[in-house]
């Protein structure tokens, strides 16, 4: 059986660690032209108390391809990608879940849930729930499917408070949301809005890949300047 370290090592050559700094969105770590917040985060509600991306996911490069393929493919190859992504999440949470909790103002997260797909048809068999609920030891005992895509007729890609419904009321408990990819954040923020309306306490999201385009403005130069190989001892939240 593979160990978490052996599998995460396979991704370290292309993972790119987000870091705070000028021209980095303070909410979601998107690369901006010097703005404090990116366009998406300054034009919709920011319900989440903290967003922690593990790596940048560069359009058309390997991590981006894996984050799309683990949902699209079937069979042995899909299982292999799933177990590799589980290893990334496991290692990140093992080292840095306390950083996420601290940033969200929580002691710990008693409940972990996943952001459902914006597309209802795809949510019934979402492999992310298998990753968080079965493969990742640090989350499997705390995983609960709290959210469902509502029947509201809303754009699958837009932020909407009515996009998701919660399966039960919440009593101020801190909740850790997990998603594979953050592009504009509309799904994760919609999910957070539903949880907050149901009575959730501090809300944090950990995402595997923060989507970026290499050919946008200075992104190529800025992405090249990030550390490689990937350093698991520091995360986007705790790195100086």
């Amino acid at each position: 059986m593979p160990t978490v370290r052996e599998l995460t090592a396979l991704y370290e050559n292309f993972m790119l660690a987000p870091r705070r700094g000028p021209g980095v969105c303070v909410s979601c770590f998107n690369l901006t032209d010097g703005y404090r917040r990116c366009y998406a985060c300054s034009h919709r509600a920011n319900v989440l108390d903290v967003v922690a991306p593990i790596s940048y996911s560069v359009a058309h490069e390997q991590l981006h391809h894996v984050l799309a393929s683990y949902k699209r493919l079937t069979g042995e190859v899909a299982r292999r990608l799933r177990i590799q992504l589980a290893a990334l999440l496991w290692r990140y949470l093992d080292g840095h879940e306390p950083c996420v909790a601290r940033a969200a103002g929580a002691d710990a997260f008693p409940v972990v849930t996943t952001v459902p797909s914006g597309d209802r048809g795809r949510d019934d068999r979402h492999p992310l729930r298998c990753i968080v609920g079965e493969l990742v030891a640090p989350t499997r005992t705390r995983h609960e499917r709290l959210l469902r895509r509502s029947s509201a007729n809303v754009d699958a890609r837009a932020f909407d408070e009515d996009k998701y419904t919660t399966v039960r009321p919440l009593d101020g408990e801190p909740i850790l949301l997990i998603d594979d990819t953050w592009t504009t954040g509309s799904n994760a923020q919609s999910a957070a809005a539903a949880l907050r309306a149901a009575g959730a306490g501090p809300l944090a999201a950990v995402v595997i890949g923060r989507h970026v385009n290499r050919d946008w403005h200075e992104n190529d130069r800025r992405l090249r300047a990030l550390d490689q190989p990937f350093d698991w001892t520091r995360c986007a939240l705790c790195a100086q």
Partner: protein
Amino acid sequence: MSCAPETAALVALLRAGKRNPTVYADLVEEAGSARAVLDDEQGLLAGQLLDAAAAEVTAWSGQGMELLTVLDPGYPANLRAVHDRPPLIFVAGRLAARDGRAVAVIGTRRPSPSGLDRARAIAQELVACGYTVVSGLAAGIDTAAHTTALAGGGRTIAVIGTGLLCCYPAKNAALQRQIPADGAVISQFWPDAAPSRKSFPLRNAVMSGMALATVIVEATHTSGARTQARLALAHGRPVLLVDSLLDQRWAAELASRPGTHVIRTPAEVPAVVERLTSTRTLVA
């Protein structure tokens, strides 16, 4: 089998060649149709281009080549999972479901006697464990890997840097004709494409993509094997280095990269690949 109109549409897109082939793989997978991308890109010209492409596809099929597009269920599953997969491959012979368990064994064109022995021993161990041996049909280590797999009753896949109708090196023409009986020769290039400086690194990316891992048996700092090691790591696939390489500086540096494993005995190759690619469960 491929849906012929979609195959012809993809050939038409690639012949017009407005963009990098990998971009077409993304566009076609996203749209679920090559025809839709062709119509979008070529408008009124699409029909004419499609007719010309369909004639080419028919001619290639008549020559015994199978064309597989990213839309075909038979497109190799391992290759589908790498970002720079070609949208279309040409196959001589037959790809089998069991070729998902494949390992690339590669190295120098001018091996030492002990390098050849190691290549043969590694190919034998892989075949004994049910793995398909992938290599590049070059002289030296590649030839030893292919011929040992065949001699041991195993399967082998040659990923070549020319079109299927060409052969490089010429002295491997017989091997190129022999492999399709118990495996496949595959190419991402037009069937009449001659070898070029650019084609071999592109071929290395496909070889890495076809395999669960790449083993470098013997190589120097100028070998194409180094290119493949870099590409395999960029695909998130393990690179296995035979320990005798480590007295070279490039190899020692490569061995320090994450995802690289140093191999001391041939039997370690299938054992390490088996452990790293097992999908049963994950441990701390």
